[in-house]
């Protein structure tokens, strides 16, 4: 078996302290401090290049921070398999010869351990996950044949099959039409009942305010973190977005001059 860390469930699911990450001499993240409790849903909002993807990769244990600590249930992320990282859709090779069920089964690879093939139990996990995201009828499709919303739901199913307790979703709503976005958001509401903790990077302040328990406003450091009413002040937003934000009529109606389609930090690994 591959070695995994066990949980101390009296600890916060995620505890980040004094986290700093540098890229090419510049600080991508500075002195990040926050913690999340089980079942919370948090929207991470900020301009392009604010470090959202970087934060997710560090939390997932894929990227090492220059200083500071990330703890999942009281221990470092490296040992945990309970973190589901859902990539931006433009970072996936959609021509890869796999079916929807194959991709969801990938979530089980660690639990299976080396030399093992999927057992009945693993197929039950996969089928149940596909049912939850309403993709059962497309299980044997090649992933290229899915719509954007279906692709995103497939990755959520993969995280469910992985038995992820913390789901990190990097801009899952970007580039989707409104019904697909609603579908994903409703799915996230349903996941709350299963005590899955969710962090979602998004550009849509309105959705962040209506569908999430807390909002983290990020621009290399945490500008504000709290419930939507506390966070979404013009002052905070101006601080996070700088010149790219144009208040309309002096009200809290905001217009963000920001292109959403590019990758977060302009680098790939």
């Amino acid at each position, binding site marked *: 078996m*591959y*070695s*995994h860390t066990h949980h101390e469930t009296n600890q916060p699911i995620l505890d980040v302290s004094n986290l700093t990450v540098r890229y090419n001499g510049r600080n991508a993240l500075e002195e990040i401090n926050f913690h999340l409790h089980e079942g919370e849903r948090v929207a991470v909002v900020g301009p392009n290049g604010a470090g959202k993807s970087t934060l997710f*990769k560090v939390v*997932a*244990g*894929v990227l090492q921070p220059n200083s500071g600590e990330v703890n999942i249930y009281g221990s470092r992320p*490296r*040992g*945990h*398999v309970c*973190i*589901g*990282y859902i*990539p931006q859709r433009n970072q*996936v*090779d959609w021509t*890869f*010869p*796999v*079916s929807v069920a*194959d*991709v969801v*089964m*990938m*979530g089980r*690879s*660690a639990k*299976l351990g*080396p*030399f093992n*093939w*999927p057992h009945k139990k693993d197929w039950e996990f996969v089928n149940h996950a596909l049912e939850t995201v309403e993709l059962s009828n497309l299980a044997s499709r*090649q992933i*290229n044949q899915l719509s954007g919303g279906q692709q995103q739901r497939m990755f959520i199913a*993969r995280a469910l099959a*992985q038995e992820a307790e913390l789901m990190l979703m990097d801009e899952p709503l970007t580039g989707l039409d409104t019904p697909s976005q609603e579908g994903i958001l409703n799915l996230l509401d349903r996941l709350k009942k299963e005590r899955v903790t969710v962090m979602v990077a998004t550009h849509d302040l309105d959705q962040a305010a209506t569908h999430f328990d807390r909002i983290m406003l990020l621009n290399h450091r945490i500008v504000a973190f709290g419930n939507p009413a506390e966070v979404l002040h013009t002052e905070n937003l101006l601080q996070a977005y700088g010149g790219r934000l144009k208040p309309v009529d002096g009200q809290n109606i905001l217009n963000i001059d920001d292109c959403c389609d590019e990758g977060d930090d302009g680098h790939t690994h």
Partner: protein
Amino acid sequence: MDTLINTLLQPLQYEFMQRGMIAAVLVGIVCAVVGTYVVLRGMAFFGDALAHTVLPGIALGYLVSGGARDTLFWWALGTSIVAALGIGAISKNSQIKEDTAIGIIFAGMFALGIALISTVRSYAVDLSHFLFGDVLSVSTHSLWLILIFGGLVLLAVFSFYKEFMTLSFDPVLAATLRLPVGLLNNLLLTLIAVTVAVSLQTVGVALMVAMLVTPAATAYLLTHRLSHMMLLAAIFASLSGIIGLYLSFYLSIASGAAIVLTATVFFILAFVWKRIKQK
């Protein structure tokens, strides 16, 4: 009908043709299965470079053993594994771009190989043997080596099927699942290296990349499942080996070239067929 059967059976009267057929099919299957990952991960240039980098190793073995060919496999295997892991490490840590780094090493090593071989009097003949392969001179001893090492490669691909699939499709997922990513990457490089060593006598240094890439790419056009892609690629590669050797026998063309040309024709047919189907 009788003439067809005669045409097919006549070459098989010769033992060198029988051994050649078996070698071409075995090598084809191993190359095709490993080549699936070479195609999916965009490693064609790496595969080509690796094959060329092996030349100085074989040349050295050739000089040391005074021209005996049976020990060359071990020299090829050693050089190939060292080169694969070396190129892997350099392309990860290099300041210059990966393909440039690979290009420099591969051309340098290839030149060293040619330089070494050129010190021998029968230079031209030997060099062309290494460059283009000679499946018809495969000995029973070599056949056993191909069977054993090719079998080990297939066993490893089968054993780590889900790990390699996950790693190739989504390296970040593999990392969050805490799969041993570095170890698996190096294992895959090693498998490609062993495949190169196993195939050297059949297709030679220069045409190796075709065996790794062409049947797998043909299969990629025709299926949407990884396991089916491996199976189809293996079938195309075996057929290419068999048909190629018949062509080689009856048309007196070089065996390695005939095999690769057959594989290329399969690819073109699949490509055209897919285009027509999509319309």
